[in-house]
């Protein structure tokens, strides 16, 4: 039976699921309920000199009837006193000694201030410290949060100060609001950090109220850019985690953050090198209870794959992420439509014509293939057809049209295999699982990358491109 137990930068964890430093970890009462629900650890809502928050604080982006594809907040760090927060940490650790409690910290960029808060947090019983170098709003205007994370030298400096004092592992939380996340990560590593966490939230304006023309979240008619998170940011987070973890000068134990809501999300972050994962938006949406399936699902996937521990697959996908110039140019796939699964929605057809390479056609019912028939011609033909209500007959099933498949032949698109470039788009838009598969074509050519072509002198790299490539 596989286990989710793991050790992260010397912090023992009963599972890799941590709550990120955010509203779900605001107070001891919440954190204890979260632990009861199954969370393995919690990064406390950032502790520092108490702030004053505004109302309102959150706004979200809905998509196609689903709520909160992305969430944005302009809330600052804890608005409760340092004493209260630390007292509650002590209480939580006393009652839940096996659970990881990480103190997220943010104070002004002064050595003594950091020394003092580190001492107090560790005295309270925190298992580790996470330095919040990522908060993109409000605090950054006061020289803290992402104002630190965006300047590698500051990152290194503060990490050094903290490491002078700290006895527990120090995790540096990175901001994505920077052109190359490896730079602050390298700086943190230089400064002696024990671990990293990424990503913090992304600068965002979620939307404008079209009645009042005021942005959201609305604070007395005005708003401010906030931090974006939730499912929408996961791909960005995965990329940044991979960038850091593939970089020798930056890689450290990584706590992955960004849109994680399911066991699949967690597995993907771990495959790119994360040791633990942190969750916020999904809990804000559905509550602590979601962790049950994250653990359950991850374990059963590990069973299927034969993994005993998280270490068995941590970072296993990192070697598969490479630079474009190392991709095999001679690898050829083409789309195949499985006629028996096709429901005749023709989304692949319109996507290929308007969004790709015009190589899917609706000509199966025609006497001969016709690649010149455009979508407009297809529609015009349908609209000019006279349709009448069928004469009612009991048991009429509507399947009047003939053909070998349940969908009429005329509605099943055909891929022009010679023209198909293997872009995947049709298989992405197809609503039916496994209806369009991308299948490898043996073109008899050996693997060859762009770099190999350039090195072989087969193509001349243009000066402009070579300047751009580092």
């Amino acid at each position, binding site marked *: 039976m596989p286990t989710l137990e793991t050790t992260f930068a010397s912090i023992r964890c009963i599972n890799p699921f941590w709550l990120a430093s955010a509203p779900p970890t605001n107070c001891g009462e919440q954190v204890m309920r979260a632990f009861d629900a199954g969370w393995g650890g919690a990064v406390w809502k950032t502790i520092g000199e108490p702030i004053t928050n505004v109302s309102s604080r959150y706004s979200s982006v809905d998509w*196609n*009837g689903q709520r909160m594809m992305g969430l944005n907040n302009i809330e600052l760090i804890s608005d409760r006193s340092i004493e209260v927060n630390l007292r509650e940490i002590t209480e939580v650790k006393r009652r839940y000694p096996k659970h990881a409690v990480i103190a997220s910290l943010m104070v002004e960029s002064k050595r003594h201030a950091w020394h003092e808060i580190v001492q107090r947090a560790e005295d309270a019983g925190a298992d580790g410290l996470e330095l919040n170098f990522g908060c993109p709003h409000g605090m950054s205007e006061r020289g803290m949060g992402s104002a630190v994370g965006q300047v590698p030298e500051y990152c290194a400096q503060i990490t050094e100060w903290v490491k002078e004092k700290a006895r527990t592992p120090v995790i540096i939380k990175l901001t994505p609001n920077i052109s190359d996340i490896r730079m602050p990560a390298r700086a943190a590593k230089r400064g002696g950090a024990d671990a990293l966490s990424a990503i913090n939230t992304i600068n965002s304006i979620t939307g404008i109220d079209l009645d009042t023309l005021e942005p959201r979240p609305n604070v007395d008619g005005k708003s401010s850019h906030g931090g974006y998170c939730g499912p929408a940011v996961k791909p960005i987070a995965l990329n940044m985690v991979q960038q850091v973890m593939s970089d020798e000068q930056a890689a450290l134990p990584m706590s992955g953050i960004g849109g994680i809501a399911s066991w699949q999300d967690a597995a993907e972050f771990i495959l790119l090198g994360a040791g633990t994962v942190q969750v916020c938006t999904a809990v804000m949406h559905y509550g602590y209870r979601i962790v049950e399936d994250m653990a359950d699902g991850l374990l059963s996937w590990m069973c299927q794959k034969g993994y005993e521990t998280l270490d068995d697959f941590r970072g296993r996908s990192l070697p598969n992420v490479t630079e474009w110039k190392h991709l095999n140019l001679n690898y050829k796939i083409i789309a195949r439509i499985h006629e028996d699964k096709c*429901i*005749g*929605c*023709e*989304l692949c*057809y*319109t996507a290929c014509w308007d969004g790709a390479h015009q190589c899917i056609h*609706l000509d199966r019912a025609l006497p001969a293939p016709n690649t010149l028939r455009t*979508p407009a011609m*297809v*529609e015009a033909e*349908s*609209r000019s*057809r*006279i*349709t*009448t*209500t*069928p*004469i*009612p*007959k*009991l*048991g*009429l099933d*509507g399947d009047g049209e003939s053909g070998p498949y*349940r*969908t009429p032949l005329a*509605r099943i698109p055909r891929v022009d295999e010679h023209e198909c470039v293997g872009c995947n788009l049709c298989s992405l838009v197809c*609503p*039916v699982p496994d209806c369009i598969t991308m299948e490898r074509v043996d073109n008899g050519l050996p693997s060859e990358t762009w770099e190999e072509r350039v090195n072989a002198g087969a193509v001349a790299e243009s000066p402009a491109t070579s300047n751009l490539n580092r």
Partner: protein
Amino acid sequence: MSESTNFFEQAPDSPEIAARFPDLHPPFNKTAALTEANRCLYCFDAPCTIACPTHIDVPRFIKKIASGNLQGSAKTILDANILGASCSRACPVDVLCEGACVMHRYNTQPIAIARLQRFAMDALHESGAPLPFLPGEDTGKSVALIGAGPASLACAAELRRRGIRAEIFDARPLPGGLNTYGIAEYKLPLAESLREIDMLAQLGVKFNFNVSVDATKLAALETTHDAVFLGVGLGAIYQLGITGEALEGVTNALDYIAAYKSGEITSAPGRVAIIGAGNTAIDAANASARLGASEVYMIYRRGPEQMSAFAFEYEHAKQEGVKFLWHVRPIGIQGTEKVKALDLARLEVTPDGSLVPITGELFQLQVDLVILAIGQATHTEFLDSGKVKLERGRIVIDRMTGQTSNPKYFAGGDCTNGGREVVDAVADGKRAGIGIAAWLEGQNANA
């Protein structure tokens, strides 16, 4: 020429009928509509659009609901089908758009197109916004339209949008034909039909009511108008030709449905027999059940496999408690002043398919009301011989343009197709409207 009408307010208000005939398919609320709209795959060259006789761009209007553009959604519907509101309620969508939905081959539940369409149309009505079209610039041409049913209304709308005057003549006091008087109230309330026509009147369609057009009147209209559209529908329901048909308590389905819809009757006697098994017969049977009849029988000379009602109508009638007597023929109606009983003969099917009475298998059914629903005769006698070509009483037209054998005459709807759905009549009227405009333009060019 635009004159404001207020047909909606002329609708009889019968709380009792409203209570007995609540919506069979209740409206979506905003949340439900949004959820359902988001379920639509947005098919290309969508089968629902192809299946709709008026080719409403279904995915387009649904996506507009999803995007919150309700005005645009209603306009998309009306652009293809000026009676989009009543069609959303009256259409047999199981065999049209929803029957064609690809979801049947996906996860089996088709998109609730009709209810979404009604949602968009209700939203337009509630907003109080005018019809999202303006009449075209006046061409000076005018068309007389005979009958104020769906075919004529659709034709008139197309004409007005092209700047052609449209003057409608109808024998009844209110417009809409069967749309107003003939559709089960739990599908399309009479008032809703009128509300929709009020909007159409904004295009400047002129209405003349209580006018029966005979051969003489027609000849006069032909001289005062540039073209004539015949949307006269069908005529009376056939008689059985058996004894007792003149007794009180014998009626026909169309009169019965019109009477309860207009609030003239609000209750049914205990035992009702409906002769026939088509969709109209089912409407009459369900109506009797809802009006309080304790026993409702449908009498049909053939079996369930031959009945012409849609399968879903048959199922609905069974749920309403209607009993079906198959392979039975009425041979006489008993009673002195009022109907008392129906004499019936059991039939059997011979190997060649014909129906013959089984000797000695006669029985009597005690009934208080007999409703005939065995099909409608045509109503084209006034088109004196040779005016337009007829075939078995139906007006022969070119399907694409609605033009009859007489170039100045166009036609559409039940009088040409023998009796189909509202949406078929709308499609006919629309094609004819476009056809008339094209023909008039051709006449101009030739002049």
